[in-house]
């Protein structure tokens, strides 16, 4: 088999692409956890919802409208969820939160089935991104490159917001010590609300972006949930650094595992997760020591 | 009985314990004084193994225990109470004591017998409850007893393992003067062969119970001697008035 340099370049890009898709999903989940100590298992269901919203809109209004509408739509659902459930569950223990969001998974799964049916949907790749791009000596799908760039851009933007802006400073303070943040006069409730909605919007965006690449099925939220959780647990909860590190580790292990050890492909990532937790029981880069 | 040699610990650039060397004889009662942030609790954490030192060693009954885990040191006779109550909140006072008493006897890990029903454990529980004045509260849950009683239980739980050395982290922290006096009696009730290391803020209590006094400041031993010597010491006053700037 001719596995020259361009082959490995191609696989590296594939790994990056998968990493960025997971990053879009995991960053919302991990920051919500870091700030609110809230494990939102329904995050995957919100991703599926984003994909369905995008698939419904893309047919008539086109991909670019869909990719804007999906995050907004999911953020609106997030507003409803926050007001109806999350806010009331904030003081409850983690078990209760896990279960409420587990119930949400069940409910949202069947709601998507009722609204959109069991048949798989999809979105066509937008014309502008349907070809391939010559890059580093390989011909790579433009849409995949778009995902990589989008993920990197969002990572950059979030890093900037966290490091340089006032709201970023508030989030950092809140993750560090929420009691102290409240003492500093930060409106914690409003901060939580904003972060939760942004997290939901990112999940919706991830769903919309994934739709042309994958297929839109009722089970997609459940399928992506476990990889997302693995990402944030390997990376360590609550930190941007953890989310990006976990995503990259997952993407590269999955991609190169598939190429180099296909028999182990499905077990490899779980073994890695177990290994990380044995060595560092709180992940690689947790927000709090 | 308990000895440290050049114990050192720092968090990043902050040196919280600087080459601390202490030596406690069997039955000695030593009080550690020092302002907030002097590294007293850190010293305790190093002694019991909840923190690993950057340098130096801890010796218990002549044996180097620096490399041993928290439970192993505890099983060799080192017990501690915490400044912040660290109790089994959902359980009763009796259960709290019994859980502790069951550890050294081996009943705590046994599947074929109930530790709570063992006569020897019940005896220990009764004895300790007597020592720390918990008899009236035995069947109350931790959530049902007052803060002061919880402080007594905090010591009682540590005592119930029948330690050789007991480390008490501010046993009177947060209790009123009345309770504080009660602790004096409590300490007097303890067997004389038990080695005690006590962190204490209440000067009167400290001088009343101490055989020896150690003063820590900025993680360093600045005084080590008899209470009489410490009492008049300008050093001690300076530290507590906060004018000690050296080091």
């Amino acid at each position, binding site marked *: *088999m*001719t*596995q020259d340099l361009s*082959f490995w370049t*191609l*696989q590296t890009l*594939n*790994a990056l*692409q*998968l990493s960025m*898709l997971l990053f879009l999903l995991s960053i919302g989940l991990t920051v919500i956890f870091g700030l609110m100590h809230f494990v939102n298992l329904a995050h995957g269901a919100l991703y599926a919802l984003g994909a369905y919203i995008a698939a419904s809109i893309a047919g008539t209004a086109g991909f670019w409208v869909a990719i804007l509408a999906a995050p907004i739509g999911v953020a609106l659902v997030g507003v409803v969820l926050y007001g109806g459930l999350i806010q009331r569950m904030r003081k409850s223990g983690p078990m209760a939160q896990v279960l409420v969001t587990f119930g949400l998974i069940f409910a949202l799964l069947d709601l998507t*089935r009722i609204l959109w*049916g*069991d*048949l*798989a*949907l*999809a979105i*066509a*790749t937008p014309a502008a991104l*349907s*070809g*391939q791009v010559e890059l580093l000596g390989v*011909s790579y*799908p433009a*849409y*995949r490159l778009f995902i990589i760039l989008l993920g990197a851009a969002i990572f950059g933007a979030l890093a900037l917001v966290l490091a340089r802006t006032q709201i970023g400073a508030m989030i950092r303070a809140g993750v560090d010590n929420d009691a102290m943040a409240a003492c500093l006069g930060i409106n914690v409730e409003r901060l939580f609300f904003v972060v939760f909605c942004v997290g939901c919007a990112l999940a919706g965006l991830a769903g919309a972006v*994934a739709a*042309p*690449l*994958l*297929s*839109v*099925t*009722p*089970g*997609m939220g459940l*399928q*992506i949930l476990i*990889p997302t959780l693995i990402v944030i647990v390997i990376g360590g909860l609550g930190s941007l650094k953890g989310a990006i590190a976990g995503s990259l580790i997952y993407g590269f292990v*999955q*991609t*190169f595992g*598939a*190429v180099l050890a*296909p028999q182990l*492909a*499905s077990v490899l990532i779980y073994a890695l997760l177990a290994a990380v937790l044995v060595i560092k029981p709180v992940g690689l880069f947790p927000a709090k020591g | 009985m308990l000895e440290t040699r050049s114990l050192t610990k720092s968090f990043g650039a902050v040196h919280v314990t600087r080459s601390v060397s202490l030596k406690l004889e069997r039955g000695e009662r030593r009080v550690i004084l020092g302002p907030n942030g002097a590294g007293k609790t850190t010293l305790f954490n190093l002694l019991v193994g909840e923190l690993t030192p950057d340098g130096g060693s801890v010796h218990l009954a002549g044996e180097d225990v620096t490399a041993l885990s928290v439970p192993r040191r505890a099983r060799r006779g080192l017990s501690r109470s915490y400044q912040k109550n660290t109790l089994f909140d959902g359980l009763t006072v009796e259960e709290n004591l019994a859980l502790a008493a069951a550890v050294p006897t081996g009943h705590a890990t046994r599947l074929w017998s109930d530790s709570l029903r063992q006569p020897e454990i019940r005896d220990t529980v009764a004895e300790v409850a007597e020592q720390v004045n918990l008899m009236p509260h035995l069947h109350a849950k931790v959530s049902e007893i007052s803060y002061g009683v919880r402080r007594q239980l905090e010591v009682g739980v540590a005592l119930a393992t029948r330690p050789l050395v007991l480390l008490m982290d501010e046993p009177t922290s947060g209790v009123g003067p009345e309770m504080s006096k009660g602790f004096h009696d409590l300490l007097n009730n303890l067997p004389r062969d038990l080695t005690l290391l006590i962190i204490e803020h209440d000067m009167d209590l400290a001088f009343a119970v101490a055989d020896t006094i150690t003063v820590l400041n900025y993680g360093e031993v600045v005084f080590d001697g008899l209470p009489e010597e410490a009492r008049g010491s300008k050093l001690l006053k300076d530290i507590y008035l906060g004018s000690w700037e050296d080091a």
Partner: protein
Amino acid sequence: MKRANLATLAAATTLALPAAALADEVDIGVLLPFSGVYAALGNEIEAGFALGLETYGNDLDVEIILHREDTEVTPATGLARTRKLILQDDVDAIVGVVSSGVLGAVRDMVDGAGVPLIVANAGNDAATGAECSPWITRVSFSNSQVNRPMGRWMAEQGIETVYTLAPDYAAGRQMIEGFTGAFTEAGGTIIGSDYTPFQQTQDFGPYIAQAQASGADALFVFYAGGEAISFVNQYASFGAAEDLPLYGSGFLTSQLYVDAQGASAEGVVTALHYVPTIDNPENASFVAAFREAMGRVPSEYAVQGYDAARALVEALETGARDRETLGAALRQVSFDGPRGALSIDPATNNVVQPIYVYETVQGANGMTQTVLAQLPAEADPVNGCVMPSLPTN
């Protein structure tokens, strides 16, 4: 609504469940997944089955009482529901079964209890091979049956080397093995093969890149359902069609999913026992009737349900009314249906049917299929099946 009319039918009939079965009634179990990942297939088969009963069953002098059971996805649930059908509802025959796992699970039960089972999808080779049963009649397909002729056909087209991909589960392996056997026998070479973790693979990119790097003449894959859509879309995005044309088992570009795949599926050549564009009068009327009822073009799953209904009706028309007589009659059905001439192989109880090689192309209303070749019907090899005769008179 398809579900509505069949559900009311089912509800009305099950409510009328008699204490003792009368001679002019037969109880038929419908054993399909209505929830879980295969729900779409279950619904499609049920729609075809309902249409088949409507089309062929009106003149019967016997009332068909349906007992609808959801197998979900798990063999355990499937078996539990089958037991219920047999032991409590006392059905005379069962129709359905989508996943091979469920078929494997219920096999001993229906065989032991002597209840005829018309398999309307599950393609596990062993079910009509080493584990065959006189009580199990398959009107759908077997995994190797669909792919074997394709192996030969591709070799005939001058394709010398092939790379294969399929999900890592039993059906995936059988599909690929069926193809590989015939292709290598005809002189072709498999130069690489990967099995991707089933339903856990988000990104097929690494595998596609691997196949591209192998330098094979063609890529042969089996994927179904959501994975088929993902795979075809991702394959198209790599623009590999020129160097590495995509062939596959026809489920890859099933009518059920081809609209979701859209232009990505264009030019993909696959083989299957049914495509909606087969040119014969039975198919024309079937497609028209299905369109009328459902508002869309039927898939192979629908035709499997449709033909299962027809096989049942034909067996009932012989006068068969109970488990024994139905079981015997079902093995002898043969008819010209939308798929062409269909018969049951007495050696294995598997369907014998032609296989169609087709290319997915742009049509006036979305994607459609052009049949490139009709490969002659052939019976599966016996594969260790020892068919005992039914205890009939």
